[in-house]
Structures are given as C-alpha cells and as structure tokens.
C-alpha cells in the first residue's frame, strides 16, 4: 500500500470529520436515552441536561411491564422478519428481470412500478382496508406482511436494479461463453456480487416494517396482535403524554433495528474479493 503524505492528512481529516459528524448525529438519540431515564417532572427541564439527575429505571419498568409489551414486540419481530425475507427475495427476482432481461413492456411495467412509490401511502389506506377485508386479512399479521411487501417492493426493486446495473457485464459474457444460462448468471454472478445491495434492502425493509404505523393502526384491532409502534402510540393520551415512557419504549424498540444493521453492514465489503472470480 502506498501511503502518500496527502493520504496521511486525509486520514486525520477523516477522523476529525467523522467524530464531528457522529456528535451531531448522536445527540438527539442520546437525548432520547437520557429522557428515558428521567422521571416525568424532569422531562423538559431548562436548561436541558444530558446526564439525568436522579436517574430512574421507572420508565423502563413501566413500559416493559405493560400487559402486552412483550407480545407486541414479538408481533413486530415476526412481521418485520417475514416482510424482509419476502421482500429481498421478490425484489431481487424483479430487479434481475428489469436490469438484465429483455421483454416487451419492460419500460412501461417499470414506470408503473415506480408509480407505487409516488402516491402518498396514506391515500391508499382506505382501499387497501377494503381489499384486506375481502381477503380476510384484517386483524391478522399476514395482512400486515403482504401490504408491507407490496408497499416497499417498488423502491427495493428500483434500488436493487441500480445495484445490479453497476456490476460489469463482462462477467456475464464470460458465463454465457461457457454456456451458462440466466439462472447461472443470477445466482453465481449477480447475487454474490450484490451482497452489499441485498444487505441494504434487508436493512431498510426491516426498518420500514418495524416502524410502520398507519396501516398497522387501522388493520389490527385486537390489542394482542398489535405491533410495537401502535402500542407505543397509546402511551400518549389526549391530556398528557408520558414522554419518559414513550422514549423508554422507543429506546427498547430500536435495539432490534440496530442489531439487524450490525449484522448486515458486515456485507458492505468488496464483492469482488468474496466471489473468488479474481483467483
């Protein structure tokens, strides 16, 4: 590795900038954690304090001991995991078709798919509700999953297609010369080289399904089948919001999302090294 002087200064600047950036990005999050350890009276004190005086676990105990918190948590986990797996799978198939195959109607279909990203999801809720009712998907976690996959599909397909397009075509030509089919290209070239892209899809789909509120709110009526965001919204009430509780529950709720991220960000590495194609 050649290390020039410029590279060295660049590295120092890198650290400085990163640390600066991290401070800015982390402050609100730390603030949330800090409030979650404060009792109601200190929630919005002035001047604000990051380190709570008289820190208390009371919010966590109250939030976690709500009858259904555990149940709601598991519901969310199930919905988010199932949504993620289905979306990664389905959108990879679609993205491959859109990026590597020729077929009539390709452009039109692609733009129709994009249309799905553009209409505000809130506007679709009433008709979605009616469809879900006739498919008997109301009040069921499956009803959440199919709608989540449908909603997030456009964007994830678009995203994956853009990743597939950055993969040099020479590799495929080599496969074709060797008599390989589309399937070989897909599984042996595109998928392994797209690990970073697939990871991004997994990370963001999980986050979306984990956080989604409006649909989960109207589609699920029974409290034992509710997901976490809906349960947390109930900590607010018309006259008084217990912010400490909300923040504590949100802090707990963010743990799985962080874990998913840590797992998948490991695949943000040079695809070329892992495929062994260079050997």
């Amino acid at each position, binding site marked *: 590795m050649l290390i020039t002087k410029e590279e060295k200064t660049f590295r120092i600047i890198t650290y400085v900038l990163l640390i600066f950036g991290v401070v800015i990005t982390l402050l609100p999050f730390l603030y949330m954690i800090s409030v979650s350890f404060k009792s*109601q*009276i200190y929630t*919005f004190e*002035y001047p604000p304090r990051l380190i709570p005086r008289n820190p208390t676990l009371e919010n966590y105990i109250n939030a976690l001991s709500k009858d259904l918190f555990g149940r709601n948590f598991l519901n969310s986990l199930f919905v988010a995991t199932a949504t993620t797996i289905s979306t990664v*799978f*389905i959108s990879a*198939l679609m993205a491959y078709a859109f990026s590597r195959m020729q077929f009539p109607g390709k452009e039109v279909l692609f733009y129709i798919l994009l249309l799905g990203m553009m209409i505000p999801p809130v506007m679709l*809720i*009433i008709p979605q*509700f*009616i469809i879900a*009712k*006739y*498919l*008997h*998907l*109301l*009040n*069921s976690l*499956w*009803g959440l999953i*199919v709608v989540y996959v449908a909603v997030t599909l456009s964007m994830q397909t678009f995203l994956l297609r853009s990743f597939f397009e950055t993969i040099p075509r020479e590799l495929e030509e080599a496969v074709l010369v060797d008599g390989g*089919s*589309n*399937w*070989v290209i*897909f599984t042996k070239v595109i998928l392994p080289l797209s690990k970073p892209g697939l990871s991004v899809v997994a990370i963001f789909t999980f986050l979306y399904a984990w956080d989604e509120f*409006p649909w989960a*709110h*109207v589609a699920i*009526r*029974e*409290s034992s089948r509710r997901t976490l965001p809906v349960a947390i*919204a*109930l900590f*607010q*009430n*018309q*006259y*008084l919001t217990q912010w400490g509780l909300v923040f504590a529950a949100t802090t707990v709720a963010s743990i799985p999302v962080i874990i998913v991220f840590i797992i998948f960000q490991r695949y943000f590495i040079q695809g070329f090294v892992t495929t062994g194609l260079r050997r």
Partner: protein
Amino acid sequence: MKEKLLIWIAVLIVSVFMGTIFWLSGCAPSAEETAFETSAVQETEAETAEAKESVVEKVAITYWHTMSDAEEVALKKVIEMFEEQYPNIKIEPTRVAYDDFKPALLTGIAGEVVPDTARLDIIWVPEFAEMGALVALDKEMEGFDEIIANTYPGPTSTNFWKGHYYGLPQDTNTQVLVWNKQMFKEAGLSEPPQTIDEFVEYATLLSNPDEEVYGYTMGGTYFWAPAPIFYAMGGEITDPEITTATGYINGEKSVAAYQLLVDMYKDGSLSPYVLGGGGVGAFEGLATSKYAMIIEDPWAYPILKSDYPEFEVNFTLVPKGPDGTTSSVVGGQNVVIFEGSQHKDEAIEWAKFLLSEEAQLTIGETGAIPTLTTVQGNERLPEYYDVFMEQLKTAKARLPHPKWSEIDNVLNNAFQYMLRGEKTVQQALDDAAEEINKLIVEG
C-alpha cells in the same frame, strides 16, 4: 435447463402466496360476494373471533375509547359489573390513541368494519351524525328522555344535530381559573380575580415581561384556549339555530372579548408564546412562578400533583364578565352507537349502563367528571371537582356542527391575525363571520 427451475420457483411462490390468501380467507367466496354490495351486512372482529370459538351464545359488543391508564382500570370494573348484570353480553373494549381515532373510525366506516359503540370527543358527534354513521338514540333508545333529564344540559346539547340526539354524554369537563397563590401574595393580592376587570388588572400587576413572567397564558390560539374568557364576556359564534355568524362572532360582545385578550398580549400581561413558538408549558410555568394564572381543565390537578408535588393547586371560577355571570367552555366525550352495529339492542344497554350512577362514579373517581347531576357532591368524587361542577352550570358548548373543525381553524387564524397586528379585531372577526357563514351553508 436452470431456467426451468427458476420458473418452478416462481410458480411455487405464487401458489404459496395464493394458498395463504385462501387459507386465511377460510370461507367460501360466495359469502364475500354478497357482502360486497350490501352495505347492511356488517362484520366486526368480535364476530370473527366469536365464529371461531363458535356456539357461545354471548353477544359481543365492541367499545372503542381513548381512555388513560387510570380510566382504563375503572372501565374494567364497570365492564365486570355490566357483564354480571347482563350475562348474555360481552364487552370488548379497544383503546385507540386520540390523534389516530378519527382516521381509524373513518377507515372502518369505509370498509364497513365499525365498532358497535365508541366514546367520541363531543366535537366529533355532529360530524359522524351528519355522515349517517350514528344511531339516533332518541328514536331507538327506550327511556332516553329520563336519562338525559338527569344530565347537565351543556354536555347533553353536544349530541344534538338536525332534530335528533346521536349520543349520550359519558363524561364532561370544563375549564376554570388556576392561580399561583405564592405570586399573588408577593404582589400583595390575597384573592383571585372575581371579575374580568380584576382579572386584567391583576394580570398586569403580576407581569414582568423583561423577566419573562406573565400574569396569564393560554395553550395556543385554537378556540378552546380563549373560549372561557370569550363566553364569560358574553361572546357568541352564531345564533342558537346555527344559521348565521354575522352579528354574533363579529358582534359587540365577541369583539370585546377578543379585544381584551389582544390588549393583554400587547401590554405584556399575556405571554407572547400564545402565538406558538415554544414557550414554557402552562403547567410548568404556573408551578415555577413564570405564569400567575392559567385557565385549564380538571386534568391540571393530577398532572400538577404528580409533577410538582410541592405546588399548591388553587382553582376558582372563571372571572365574571360585564353581565355579572361567569361562563366557560364544555369539553368531554359522548357514547355513541354506530349504524353498522348488528347488535343495536345490546349496544343500547351498554350505553345506558355507562350513564348509570354506579358507572359514572366508578370512572368519575379517576379524573373524568360525571355528567349526571344526581352524583354531584358525591363523596366518592374528588373534592376539586366541586368548582368544575359549579362552572359546568354556566359553561357553554362549542358550536355542535359537522364543520366545527373547519370553523375552529377559521377562529384560530382570526385570532392569529389580531395578535400579529395584521388585522384589527373587528376586521378579523368580520372576515371570520363571512367564512363561517360559508361553512354553515355548505354543511
């Protein structure tokens, strides 16, 4: 060929997907088809749940509400009492967050999946009634007149729309003056203001804008905030029949009421953060001697008690206006029955039960003021209710009209124009009258 494999996998996914849907749908498609066209066929989750367990003869009545934790505990007790008395009925309560309540109900109505009963904010009842979503209780409920004979007229009036009553007042509230005794003492005052003139005088005396100390503050400019002063000054939004706002909202008394607040704002005795913009919260400011007076609803008591245990909470009636009468604004919620309910008779029993003395007292103990005059002063109710119940005798309901949300917005904007000095009070209210007239005619 590998491509074949790919195709098979795709087929597999589709069939699994379709299979899942059919498995979930469970029953024959013919049932769905019939349901599609007829709006009369209703389905509630209660039913679905019931169908699975089958054979149980109990009728399930769903009840949606926006209660707090404490109220929910009391509700559980009330349900137990009810089910004991009516062994054939099962109540299934669902708690929904207040801000999301209306969207949830509307989606449900559109999809014909509504609860049997719900506790609605009083301002929503005319809206849902106009839509045709609610049962007219004075037609369907036996003994309706006897029940409302024992309720406060203010809260009950909020159920009335186009000649019928569409709900029963389940709980009520109103706003009264809360004052900081310590600050009054330091300013040499011993008593809270009795009249509006005293109110203005004291507020000026208690203010020190340079130190950001204000005699009076409000939660914002939406109508609920200035309403107590507005009604105490004799203000009116429209005529009693709700046919015109001209001469009412821009009438002499209404203008005087808003003028009073604008003047207080200008001389610094009303906090400038009434505009919005993030001032110290009303409760926090009151307890930490930043604000000397606020006008608030009964929830002030438990909130102040839990957050500022040291603070001495003092309530008094809203100061009397020039006519020598006090007044305030009515809040609260009504219990309603939805047209989509398949068990209206049972739903009616439940609604009636919520208006029984026992139910009212049980929920009343936790902070929601009962609507029955017969329980006023009951020893089971907290002492601080007395002043609120006294205030309720003269408190007025906001316009019970389906367009209220929009009218509220018009009034909110009018108040903002005045405070910002972009329009005079008269001008702002003249314009508001015109806009409100348009809304009333449309509605």
